[in-house]
């Protein structure tokens, strides 16, 4: 092999190595910044006190409460419409619904925030509220859940559906007893990743849920809800160093939440891989 070819080979892989480094380094730098910046305030106080007393308790509770709402709303609508598209939709309707769902996925989140604000907060008169935020966030992650649900169901072999139909089972029973169980892990991890995405989206919430130093209430409307990314954003702009530390601590907390959600999603997927492999017909 000529020296020139060998040099080119080494050069190519060196460039690729630098690129890989350029993927990892900023990410690690981000993590370092967030955790380093939050060191002065890290402690149990974050979990036991509210934001007006140097803690994050209300913001954590509010974030979980918002996620729960998204889980219910986007979960039901997204999984339901994914099931319809995978199992029942006539070809034409399916193509149209799929196309528009993809277009919805490309909507800039600030536009969702704007419309949710004008429609729900102002025109419907809900004020800054839980429900307005949950709806805005749900619209954001809906296309993702629809898609992952549909993909998970399409991986269930047709032979299982035909086998069940050949036994005279109704389409409802085929769906619930035969098709959904093996697809469930894929659907669930899709929903969880969608929740993980929604923890990071601030733009739709900025103008829909507001903020409060109190714990979140159960009221659907007219009560503002505290949440982590708002603390990051607001405190970031304050001159007080303590506020800035809390901003970083809220960042660390939302990263922790992200890690937990993604690991849960991965765990579910890993546990189902064995079963799916054996089912490959």
């Amino acid at each position, binding site marked *: 092999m000529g020296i020139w070819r060998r040099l080119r080979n080494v050069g190519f892989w060196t460039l690729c190595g630098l690129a890989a480094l350029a993927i990892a380094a900023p990410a690690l730098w981000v993590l370092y910044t967030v955790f380093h910046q939050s060191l002065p305030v890290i402690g149990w106080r974050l979990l036991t006190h509210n934001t007006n007393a140097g803690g994050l308790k209300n913001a954590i509770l509010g974030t979980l409460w918002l996620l729960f709402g998204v889980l219910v709303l986007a979960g039901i609508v997204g999984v339901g419409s994914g099931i319809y598209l995978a199992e029942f939709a*006539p*070809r034409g309707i399916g193509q149209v619904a799929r196309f528009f769902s993809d277009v919805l996925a490309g909507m800039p989140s600030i536009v969702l925030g704007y419309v949710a604000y004008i429609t729900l907060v102002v025109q419907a008169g809900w004020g800054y509220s839980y429900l307005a935020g949950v709806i805005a966030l749900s619209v954001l992650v809906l296309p993702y859940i629809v898609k992952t649900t549909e993909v998970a169901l399409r991986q269930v*072999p047709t*032979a*299982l*559906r*035909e*086998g*069940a*139909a*050949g*036994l*005279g*089972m*109704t389409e409802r*029973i085929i769906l619930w*007893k*035969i098709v959904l*169980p*093996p697809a469930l892990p894929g659907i669930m991890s899709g929903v969880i990743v969608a929740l993980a995405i929604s923890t990071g989206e601030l733009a739709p919430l900025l103008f829909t849920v507001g903020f409060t130093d109190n714990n979140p209430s159960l009221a659907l409307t007219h009560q503002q809800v505290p949440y982590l990314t708002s603390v990051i954003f607001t405190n970031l702009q304050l001159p007080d160093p303590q506020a800035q530390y809390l901003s970083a601590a809220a960042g660390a907390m939302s990263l922790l939440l992200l890690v937990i959600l993604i690991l849960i999603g991965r765990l579910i997927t890993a546990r189902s891989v064995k*079963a799916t492999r*054996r*089912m490959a*017909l």
Partner: protein
Amino acid sequence: MSPTVNLSTGERRPLLRPGTSEVAPTADDIVLSTQHVSFFYGDVQALSDISLDVHRQEITALIGPSGCGKTTFLRCLNRLNDMVPRTRLEGQVLFDGEDLYAKSVRPIDIRRRIGMVFQRANPFPKSIYENVAIAPRANGQRGNLDDLVEESLRRAALWDEVKDKLKSSAFDLSGGQQQRLCIARAIAVEPEVLLMDEPASALDPVATQAIEDLMQDLKRDYTIVIVTHNMQQAARTSDRTAFFTVDQRPEGRVGVLVEYDDTNTIFTNPKDPRTEDYVTGRFG
């Protein structure tokens, strides 16, 4: 567990003795009758003008070269093709004299009475027990299904092999065992007819033999329609044989029925030269 019970009405029919070619067929003797059936996938015609009677408690074999529409025809008999979008059937399929494709007939009722075993074993990703019990339970049977499961597995000649591991996954079974499990699963619904789509094509000779023995056994209670690539299998197991082939037409390749007769006649004294070419191995 008698197949002579009409499932939709609960009415008992007299047990017929196995039909043979010497006995003149009566209306009662014919379970399934297709009349000028043509079938289309979208604009593509797959079957043309198939008329064929299936006799009670016989094994009817459908043979023919690949792509001749045997499987498509079989799937018309329990309306499984309904699940395929943009398909269309012309002509009539009569089941015990009733139009299978009438508006008032629900496909699921048909499929409970006309069971199906597929080319490749397709057990559900559940336990052996659940595979057999799930359909009867889903179809409304309540209470303890242990007896039904055992009886079905016995009839499928699988009980002795699995009775100690009913709770283990169906995927732990060998291919042949899985196929017999699928037969047990079909029997548990108590159908009158069993449609078998090349049930042994993916199996080794020993497992194939087991399935063929089982078919002879099942013939006493059920009417069986089997699609097979294997002419020896058709000759060995069936009472009647239908030979399908592909007709080259200007508009495309269409499956047609060439000849339908006693298995003996088809293999020893066929009337159509195309049948003769096929069964003597000069074609296909």
